[in-house]
């Protein structure tokens, strides 16, 4: 935001009022963020198909765009734009039309507090991490709306499962980040990243064993939070046909799809900022911070894809069992353990 407002001041001179500066800066940032997010989602659909292809001893898309089907997502988007927008007769039309956007906006809003590079953060909130977890809990509402409004039994099942799963997994997800907040003493995302500067040994993932465990738990919970295999309960395509978006077509379906990949990237970005040192490189001075951040996040995205295409899916009750009886106690242990660790090592004093 600071860099954007600085740029705007340079272009338009000092004549702008602070309010106009704030609004125009915010709008510019929002535009950049939504473009980046849409681009990422589109790139990741291609990447997922290639990763899945190579894991399954096939190629994935190869035709569109010459080299390894790089333009396949563009072709897909064009195709999906031309699709008929079907709304079932018996559906609750208002909710049905609204829900893709609720899910999409939920993930879009969270991007405001992600620090991609020094100064490149849409809103440098003091409650940054808290804000991210808070706004990303809008997704279960969207999923419930979609499932209920479709007036389809499979969609309803998917929605019920999805809402239960996402509400449950938000708890270990947020709890796993608490030790980092304790270590930093701040919820501000910039402060969290700044505290990890100066080489790989300062990253929170290697701060102490409990934080390493917290990172692993965060990674698992984040897969569940974005509804991907082995926790893809809301879709469970072999059981519930397509879960909550069974009845959706065309662009409305595409919004669910984009939101899934945007969320996938979002949780990876949070993990990068919170545990993996954000834009700080493994060693040496800060160099191309945005790229470093991106590489780390993409590696995490790749890991999530690897997991999805390797493991079978859990059953609903096993999923809940994993969350409430394994992950929540373990994350609480992490909070306690790293607290004691910090006290013993004298960091808290």
């Amino acid at each position: 935001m600071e860099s954007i407002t600085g740029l705007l001041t340079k272009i338009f001179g000092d004549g702008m009022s602070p309010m106009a500066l704030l609004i125009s800066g915010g709008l510019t940032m929002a535009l950049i963020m939504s473009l980046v997010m849409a681009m990422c989602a589109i790139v990741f659909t291609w990447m997922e198909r290639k990763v899945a292809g190579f894991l399954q001893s096939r190629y994935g898309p190869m035709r569109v765009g010459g080299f390894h089907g790089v333009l396949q997502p563009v072709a897909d988007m064009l195709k999906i734009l031309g699709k008929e927008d079907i709304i079932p007769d018996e559906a609750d039309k208002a909710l049905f039309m609204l829900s893709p956007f609720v899910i999409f906006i939920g993930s879009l809003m969270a991007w405001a507090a992600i620090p991609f590079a020094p100064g490149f953060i849409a809103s440098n909130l003091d409650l940054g991490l808290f804000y991210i977890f808070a706004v990303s809990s809008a997704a279960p509402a969207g999923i419930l709306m979609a499932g209920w409004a479709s007036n389809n039994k499979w969609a309803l099942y998917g929605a019920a499962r999805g809402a239960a799963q996402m509400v449950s997994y938000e708890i270990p997800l947020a709890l796993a980040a608490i030790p980092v907040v304790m270590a930093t003493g701040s919820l501000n995302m910039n402060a969290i990243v700044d505290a990890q500067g100066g080489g790989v040994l300062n990253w929170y993932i290697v701060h102490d064993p409990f934080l390493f465990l917290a990172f692993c738990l965060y990674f698992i919970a984040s897969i569940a939070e974005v509804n991907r295999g082995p926790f893809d309960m809301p879709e469970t395509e072999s059981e519930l046909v397509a879960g909550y978006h069974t009845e959706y077509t065309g662009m409305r379906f595409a919004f669910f799809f984009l939101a899934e990949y945007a969320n996938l990237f979002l949780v990876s970005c949070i993990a990068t900022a919170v545990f993996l040192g954000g834009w700080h490189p493994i060693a040496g001075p800060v160099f191309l911070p945005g790229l470093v951040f991106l590489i780390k996040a993409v590696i995490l995205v790749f890991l999530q894809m690897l997991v999805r295409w390797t493991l079978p899916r859990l059953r609903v009750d096993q999923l809940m069992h994993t969350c409430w009886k394994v992950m929540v106690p373990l994350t609480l242990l992490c909070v306690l353990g790293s607290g004691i660790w910090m006290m013993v090592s004298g960091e808290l004093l």
Partner: protein
Amino acid sequence: MSDTTVTHGWEHQDKPRVQQSELLEINMGPQHPATHGVLRLLVKTDGEIVQSVTPYLGYLHRCAEKIAEGCDWRQWMVYTDRFDYLAPMNMNFGYAVAVENMLEVEVPERAQYIRVICAELQRIASHLIAIGTFGLDMGAWTPLLYCFREREEILNIFERLSGGRMLYNYFDIGGVRFDAYDDFAEEVLFMVHVMEQKIVEYNTLLTYNKIFIERTADVGVIDAETCYAYGCTGPVLRGAGVPFDCRRDDPYSIYDRFEFEIPYGQGEQGTVGDCWDRYIVRMREMSESCRIIRQAVDGMPEGDFMSPDLKKLVKVPAGSLYTRTESSKGEIGFHIIADGGSKPFRNKVRSPSYSNLHVIEKVGPGMMISDLVATVGSLDIVLGEIDR
């Protein structure tokens, strides 16, 4: 609720509520990814828990048995292909053996060996689909594509042999339609060699995966008594701990010449007769099939591939006979009634999937929807053979 002593994963949780809510009636199929074809299961559920399952059949009925009465003995072979379209060689085999038993005709040695090799390759191909799609029902995509990769090699062999990649129509009454090509033996041996290594790969990827075991062990337990009551055969019966296999216990063709084991469920990961047991039985049967193929390739003689003393138009003497053979899904039986003419009076087919499927009515109530999908997947049904 069923009165079986089936254990489910959720039993440690609270007991079902005393006051029951209204049941949700839901159609699983005829177009549903988990029903393996055009099967319709009418499921009544209370939340995630299934209260009753009723299979509705007939979406793929093609009157094959009635058609038999209108074509001559040889012509009907193509219709047997279309029963179990994932294992047409085994279907061909069953019908060929059935008619040959009626005719009391001697099938040449070379044809016998080619038949056994084809049938066992087909069994591997069919089991590959069974375990691949079973994995898919669990949400594991990758094993399916690995399985298809190996199946492709088998299909290539069949294509060179018969010209077809799906429906071969390769067996004929009195032998096989074409002789084996020159490097048939080498190709088959190479395939078996590859297959034995790939089975290890599948075990690493899927069989002993913790999540997979969690999803399949103690799920959908079908005990031996239930199998007897419903007439289940094949991997379902063997998974229930009964080592019965027509190839060994009621030998046909030349199966009495080969050495092989009958794998059966031992409840290694849970209860005897659970989904994992049925799965591992198929896995081990593939290894056993590899063993049989090696022996058959070693013993394959030169000579005729078609019985020379059989006329073009076969006439079966009057009488009736039931012949059973072991297909990949279980016991495929042909009850043939002949009136001495060039056409069958009646061909009745006893298909294994038909009996295997109906067990779901008994074991389905009380399980979760996910477990229902797993159990249907572990039965490995093919609708073409159920409806005929």
